[in-house]
């Protein structure tokens, strides 16, 4: 499958390499960049509820905690190589991590608390940048079409917001890792200063195929009498990752290597 995928990618790229009269910017075709994109973390602090006197009701059981917006700083490194007058191939690596509070409920103690559900991974994106009509790669406005592949790992940790410490078996619970991929398109603008340094600004839209953890394997029951309220950590983290794909701005500063 992987070989087929690489073969298809090569089939797309090769004609451009063979036919192009690519000159890049003053003959330089390769740019290495360091960049930043804010991961909008709709996450973890539970506000305004007195946990000590809290009694779970039928309605509240499945309700998600109210969220506040927390920015998780996500760096990236990228490489761009000019293939043709208006086309370049682009690769990006960025780690990501996101977390949110989840409810747990201990039937034996009849207690309820919060636990921090974390999902993290390394994203690898590969795509083609089509510089807009009448501009020359790697300069000025572009559309970037790319596929992102990322294995995710999810776990639980103690929540600073919880009035009750989470049980150890809950914190030790392991989820099955899930490989995911998404498709994105970004609209951006790359400028070059002093004939060497690039500034890349973009905003991306995308869609993720798959879920952050396997619902079938992780249905909420942890041990004999501890329940992780189904849905909440999964849905929240998934929403966080979706937010990374949905209208995510980014800024990068690069250098024309060769």
């Amino acid at each position, binding site marked *: 499958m992987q070989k087929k995928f690489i073969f298809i990618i090569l089939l797309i790229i090769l004609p451009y390499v063979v036919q192009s009269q690519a000159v890049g*910017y*003053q*003959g330089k075709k390769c740019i290495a960049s360091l960049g930043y994109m804010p991961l909008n973390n709709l996450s973890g602090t539970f506000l305004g509820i007195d946990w000590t006197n809290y009694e779970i009701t039928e309605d509240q059981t499945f309700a998600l905690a109210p969220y506040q917006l927390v920015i998780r700083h996500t760096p990236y490194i990228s490489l761009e190589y000019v293939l043709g007058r208006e086309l370049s191939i682009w690769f990006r690596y960025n780690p990501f991590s996101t977390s949110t509070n989840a409810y747990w409920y201990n039937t034996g103690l009849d207690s309820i608390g919060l636990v921090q559900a974390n999902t993290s991974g390394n994203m690898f994106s590969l795509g083609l940048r089509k510089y807009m009509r*009448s*501009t020359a790669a790697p*300069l000025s406005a572009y559309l970037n079409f790319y596929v992102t592949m990322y294995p995710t790992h999810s776990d639980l940790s103690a929540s600073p917001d919880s009035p009750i410490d989470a049980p150890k078996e809950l914190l030790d619970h392991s989820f099955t890792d899930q490989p995911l991929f998404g498709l994105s398109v970004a609209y951006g603008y790359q400028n070059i200063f002093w004939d060497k340094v690039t500034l890349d600004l973009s905003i991306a839209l995308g869609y993720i195929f798959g879920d952050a953890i396997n619902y079938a394997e992780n249905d909420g029951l942890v041990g004999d009498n501890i329940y992780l309220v189904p849905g909440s950590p999964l849905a929240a983290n998934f929403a966080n990752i979706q937010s990374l794909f949905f*209208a995510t701005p980014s800024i990068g500063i690069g250098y024309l290597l060769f």
Partner: protein
Amino acid sequence: MKPILTLAGALLCIVGVQAQSSDYIRINNSGALPSEVYTPSTVKYQDDITRIEEELSKKDKKTQQEYYLESGFSIDEMMRSGLVLYNPDYNAYFEKIADELLKNNPTLRNEVHFYLLRSPVVNAFAGAGGNIFISMGLIAMLDNEAELAFVMGHEIGHIALEHGLDFYMEAKEIDKSVNDNSLFRKSSFNESLVIKNLYSQDLETQADSYGADLISKSKYAADTATMNAVFDVLKYSYLPYRNDPFPVRFFEGAHYVISHNLMIDSVAPITGEPEIMDAKDAFKSTHPSIGDRRTAVNNTVSKNDPSGRKEYIVSGEWFLRIRNDARYELPMFYLHNELFQDAIYSAYLSLQKDPDNLYLEKIIAKALTSMTKYRNSKDDEVYAEKANFKEYEGEQQSLYFMLWAMKDVEMNVMSLLYTYNLYKQHPEDKELQPLCKTLINDLVVYHFDSDVYFLKNDSISRDSLYVLSDKNNPKVDISKVRKTGFKKTTTRKTTTRVTKYNPVPKIDKTKAHLLYAFNDFWGDMAFDTLWEAAISERKEREELAKKYKDSGFKFNGADTRNYYLGENLGVDSIVVINPFYMRIDVRKENAIEYISGEEGELNYLQILQDNAQLMDMHVQILDPLLMNEQSVDQFNDMNEFNDWFSVQLDFGSMNIPGYNQEVIDSLADTYGTDYFLWTGIISLRDRMHITGPLILLGTSLFFPPLAILSIYDLLAPRYEFFYLALLYDVKTREAYVLKYELLNNNDTRAILNSHTYEMLYRISAKP
């Protein structure tokens, strides 16, 4: 005394003409290049505005600044264009006349400078900075130095009375006043223009008066005869400088005659511009009517004491030499302006005194060749409007009529006959053979697909030839010819389509009178070789056309220029000619951004140099802003190339030698490359577009992310720029279109670097 002087002048004129060799070397710039050419206009503008008086109101200061900006940059642009001649000999002559006129006003004398304009238009004008320009067309029309002195005095008057600034400020006021108060705001009546014209007429009257005073105070012949002669020049400025009959049989050969029906029965009488304009025309004119001016000036000079006054104070010989040069230059100016009939007639006038002058004869050959090419390719709308004989008066009309009434095929034959005859007389000339080649190519492609049609060994009496010619050129009822509009030529039955080559001739009877025309040339090796080459080229083209018929590939007429797109060329040395850069902000009333435009031009020159260096490519740039006072030869070369380029653009897809092809070929050898680049940028700042972004904003109610785009579209400034780059192989005249793009960006340094590098890369990279 005066007749003696006239006789002396005439003798000097004869001496001058006799001194002409059988060829003529065109006048060029020489000596030190004036600083106006190579000093950035911005520097001069900064200097100019220091002269604005401090006590003026803020508004007046601003208007004066605008005047210095617009007039200064416009004059500089003209001075760099090649239109102005910098020649110490000519300049010295004008300066000496000015010395006499302004001997009592040394301050003003130091402020005025005189230049000769390389233009056939009869004109003189004063510009900012005390610069006065006098056209060669005007010089060619004048009779003596005193007439020239009055013209100069008139222009000095404009400078002394600061008419340039005065008119500019007044025009601004008129525009404002009319816009605020006009009853005609919504009508087509241009009230503002009329008021400005009336004001301009007033200034011209003042300048006439000033000029008449100046010449009256000098020793020049300031009499009514001189003044009348000057105003006659204006009255008949649309006519050639002499009204000699043109014998259409000038073009006949031993075996070729011009039909009687191609000779006009009578030429239109000369009327001249009206002495007194009617009210309607008076409103349209920037100058008062000639009669009014003549009367006013004659009133002044008639009081002068004629004793001791002369037609020539500086030098009669000098004047006649300059006038003679101007008259020799006129045909070439006409040629470059595609006024072919004017070129032929003015060359003919000079040939009357210098019958074997090769330069003049070649101008006629070039004009005939170009006309033939245009006519054959049915691209004659370019000049035909100007060529309608009914628009012309005087003896020249007979030439216009003949060329207008002549069929395409006959024009081709006549042109070849004239040109090949010339080539036979001057086989060493490098320009004549290519002209013959292109004329034979046309003859083969459009009119005769073989030489077997021609009656090579037959003979015919001239009388019989006339009969044939008259029969094949039926008389035109000229009363039915519209005064405007061009002659409808017959639809070409294209011979470039794929047709089977037929060696058996079918004689077209309407061409019968032309079949003997070349009987003196057949057997001439050079002539036969050109025919064979043309026929085999035609066969090749037909074969190719047949081969590519299914793919829709078509071949046009003979000598088609190829425009190459996209290929790498493998050229490592080029010369860039006078790159241009213009910045326009369409949001502003004064849309041209002079200062930032010049800054952009300097920036573009630097970008060209930097990228050439980066690519290790040999790029020479001929541009006034990179020159100095020693660069007069480079300036001349630049002008030659620009003249050549301008003509090639006019020729379009016709690949024929430029009018100065010999000079260009020689310059290409000097510069060590055949590849010359014309490039330029027009940078635009456009108005905001509101509708599109607002629609997008409305749509964003349903899809919120679009709001970002719509807000960006509403706020972001709109830039675009047009980038042009055409590379020519100046010897083969093939063109390579490197850049012809409208780009939706601001032309930042990075973007220009990117595109310029790419352009140079394509030139240098191996195919």
